[in-house]
């Protein structure tokens, strides 16, 4: 649809507030041949239990229903893999369901668990996600991922999903980036930042100390994207426990309010019709009137440059949490940096910057933990985990990992979870000598965006410290 009814624009009204109680992650890597998926899942569950000083058995006592995010059955060649995991976690005969929304699977899994708690169906729900992308060689993996595009109209074209996205990147590059060398360098900066933050994260698969030049000299994937502009293919698991207020405070002293929403758009970008830009609370109806003048070719919305699904998810989530201006109201974000350029597109879709001006979020230094120009804390640090470029993209686990990372900052426990020598050792990774504490000081509210491919599904999850709720929430 290209016009929305009042009913469709309703800000979701949940029956009761939902809290994030705890979360945990496994190690993430390109391949983990020595472990079955269930072992990774249990690794993440154990971390979640330990985080709130509970034994796995104690934590399990609270769980009433389970939501499992696992995108690609094809990779592991096991249908109903969710049932295998559910049994290995010893959670039968509780109700469980598998969730698949491509790259947004992790976020969607939280969305489902959230609704289960908010509705009163469960006092406590488990959202667990995983992926194992190491069980076919990369070529076949690319074919499988391309099978998440339209099998009749797109997949036969090269069997390469990156290509279906790259046409969007090209359009954004030419229209909004104006093919400027400076814009290309801004894109590279995102990769440098995220690979660099990954160095401080023991879970992360691809920590790298690199420069803009390294990114610009890495192999071309599809102009203007290069290898270091692209996300990883990963193996790993992550989980969160959501609960209602009473149960959450039984389990921990410090649960966080959680709001979750979702949007969608056509699987084929081809099918996207021209429409008016739906506005976020910090935008005005006339601010985009001259968009096509300022950026010739940029007047078709969402065209091949905007992710309407992200905009809709943000619209709902901001309404639910009372967010007016994400840069002012949030303290950090984890965004779905599948590609450096899609990261910039998302800044605009979710209102961190207006359409056409996404690059300034990077160029101002606002997106850094410490603004490189001022030496002061960044206004809205992004992807301190390393994101999909530096940490991982174990599809079903990604959106959940992002939420845990944001939460650890609000809990003030980021350093504890990332500095731990024992963890670095257990993951067989070397903690860098210049390891830096990336804890966002005084973080109270954060956001995670989970996103599928060319934008078919996007979820927004907002975390808020209960003492710092915003006025005007839905």
């Amino acid at each position: 649809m290209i016009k929305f009814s009042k009913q469709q624009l309703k800000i979701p009204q949940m029956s009761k507030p939902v809290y994030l109680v705890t979360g945990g992650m496994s190690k993430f890597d390109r391949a983990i041949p020595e472990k079955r998926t269930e072992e990774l899942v249990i690794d993440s569950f154990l971390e979640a239990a330990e985080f709130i000083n509970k034994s796995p058995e104690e934590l399990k006592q609270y769980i009433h229903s389970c939501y499992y995010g696992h995108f690609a059955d094809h990779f592991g060649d096991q249908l109903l893999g969710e049932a295998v995991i559910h049994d290995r976690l010893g959670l039968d005969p509780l109700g469980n369901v598998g969730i698949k929304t491509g790259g947004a699977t992790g976020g969607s899994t939280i969305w489902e668990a959230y609704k289960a708690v908010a509705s009163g169906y469960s006092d406590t729900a488990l959202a667990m996600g995983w992926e194992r992308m190491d069980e076919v060689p990369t070529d076949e993996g690319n074919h499988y991922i391309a099978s998440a595009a339209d099998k009749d109209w797109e997949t036969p074209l090269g069997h390469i999903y990156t290509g279906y996205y790259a046409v969007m990147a090209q359009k954004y590059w030419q229209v909004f980036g104006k093919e400027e060398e400076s814009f290309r360098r801004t894109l590279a900066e995102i990769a440098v930042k995220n690979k660099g933050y990954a160095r401080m994260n023991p879970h992360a698969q691809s920590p790298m100390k690199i420069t803009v030049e390294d990114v610009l000299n890495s192999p071309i994937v599809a102009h203007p994207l290069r290898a270091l502009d692209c996300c990883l293919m990963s193996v790993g698991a992550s989980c969160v426990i959501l609960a209602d207020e009473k149960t959450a405070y039984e389990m921990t002293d410090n649960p966080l309010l959680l709001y979750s929403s979702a949007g969608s758009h056509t699987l084929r970008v081809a099918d996207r019709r021209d429409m008016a830009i739906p506005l976020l609370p910090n935008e005005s109806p006339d601010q985009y009137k001259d968009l096509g003048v300022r950026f010739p070719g940029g007047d078709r919305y969402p065209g091949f440059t905007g992710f309407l699904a992200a905009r809709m998810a943000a619209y709902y989530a901001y309404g639910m949490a009372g967010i007016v201006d994400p840069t002012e109201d949030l303290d950090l974000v984890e965004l779905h940096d599948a590609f450096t350029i899609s990261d910039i597109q998302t800044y605009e879709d979710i209102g961190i910057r207006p359409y056409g001006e996404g690059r300034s979020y990077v160029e101002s230094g606002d997106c850094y933990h410490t603004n490189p120009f001022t030496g002061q804390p960044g206004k809205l640090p992004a992807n301190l985990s390393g994101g999909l470029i530096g940490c991982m993209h174990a599809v079903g686990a990604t959106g959940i990992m992002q939420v845990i990372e944001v939460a650890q900052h609000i809990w003030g426990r980021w350093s504890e979870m990332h500095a731990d020598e024992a963890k670095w050792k257990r993951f067989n990774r070397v903690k860098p000598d210049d390891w830096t504490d990336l804890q966002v000081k005084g973080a109270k509210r954060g956001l995670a965006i989970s996103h599928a491919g060319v934008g078919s599904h996007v979820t927004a999850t907002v975390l808020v410290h209960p003492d710092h709720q915003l006025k005007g929430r839905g």
Partner: protein
Amino acid sequence: MTTQNRGTVKVENGRYRVTGNFHYAYPNEPIRDESGKLLGITNPADMTHIHAYGGEAPFFENLSNAKLLGTKCANPKCETYGSVYIPYRIHCPDCLMRNEEVDLTELARKGASVHTFMITERTGAFNTLEKPIRFVNVEFEGVSTILMGYLSIGEPEIGMKVVPIFQTKKPTFTIMDLSWVPAGTSAADLPEGFTF
């Protein structure tokens, strides 16, 4: 291991009738580390699926007749009445009435231009396109949507005029039967099997 007599399918009296082999079995092989420890196995799979085109079949059939078919909402009560779609949509996305077929071949020959594109050396398993591949997303005057395809000749640019070519000599009855070349390309230069 033989892969002869690969499966084919016919429909008779509304039922699939299959002949030949739809799968071939290969033995598993162990996966070991340097020390010889068993870590897993390979699971070979070679299997053919059956796939129904349903209401989209005319589109794929007509590529082999050098025709590019789209559809149009023909419901005057629909808010987006008259919208033209390619990819071919069987039903209008708004009113869900069955769309009317429209022949877009002439429009495409006169007025198609590249909305965006990409060039890559990377492909996935089963790719049959020559590398580097060049995707073009083609927009047509008066059409609501933008069709993805591949450019067979020349280097793509945003705004460039392109015309469709069709694999009419040895059609595969897939989207691969449709490709694009710059307007003004001569028939002699077309890839093997393709005509305007």
